[in-house]
């Protein structure tokens, strides 16, 4: 059940009685809208020295997480990737992390 998973679902999105056939035949996803963390938290400055913040946007392997996954807006992603690359240059972040 959708409610059991605890995800917020708009009333209009909830499957009603008449939709049951559709629900049964086609798997439904309730995707939550992604928001840019830098916009929401009003982080003006993405600093290359802030390792804790930057590493949240790195994959396990040390790669930059793509926008479509992290939900960061494009102006912020540009600043973010710039900062990550600077941090890599001074050995604060890895170019490639061992798994």
């Amino acid at each position, binding site marked *: 059940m959708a409610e059991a998973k605890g995800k917020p679902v708009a009333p209009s999105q909830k499957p009603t009685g008449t939709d049951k056939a559709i629900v049964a035949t086609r798997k439904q996803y309730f995707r939550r809208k992604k928001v840019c963390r830098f916009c929401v938290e009003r982080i003006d400055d993405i600093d290359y*020295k802030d390792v804790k913040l930057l590493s949240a946007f790195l994959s396990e392997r040390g790669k930059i997480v793509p926008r479509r996954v992290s939900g960061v807006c494009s102006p912020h992603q540009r600043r973010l990737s710039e900062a990550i690359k*600077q941090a890599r240059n*001074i*050995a604060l972040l890895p170019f490639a*992390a061992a798994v």
Partner: protein
Amino acid sequence: MRIYEELFIVRPNATEEEIDQAVEQIRQVVTGAGGTIDKVEKWGVRKLAYRVRKYEDGYYVLVQFSAPPDAVTEIERRLRVSDTVIKYLTVRIDRKLKRLEKKRREREQRAARKPAPAAPAPGAPAAEEVMAKAEAEASE
């Protein structure tokens, strides 16, 4: 005159004097070129994200200064030659500081405007009027 930030890594087995000497070197170039040192921050020994000249960790030092552009080339040349410094990064930050300052000011202005009811009041009814007008036209 531009504002720069120099972050460099001294090898972990360097003595306190060697670290101070590296900072002093930068200070000499900056003051010699007519600039000023604004801030010196010693982060201490940190683990490096990858091996640099066979060192696993390094002593990070951050120096903020304002100097003409030529001074930076000289500082970088000296750091490159230096045996104690294993890595360095120079970042120009005056544009960034300006941008942050502008953003902060904008935010303050917006915050100051918000509690005053005068600003949003003339805007809101106008929008409603336009909507009503459009609806009226549509129904005709």
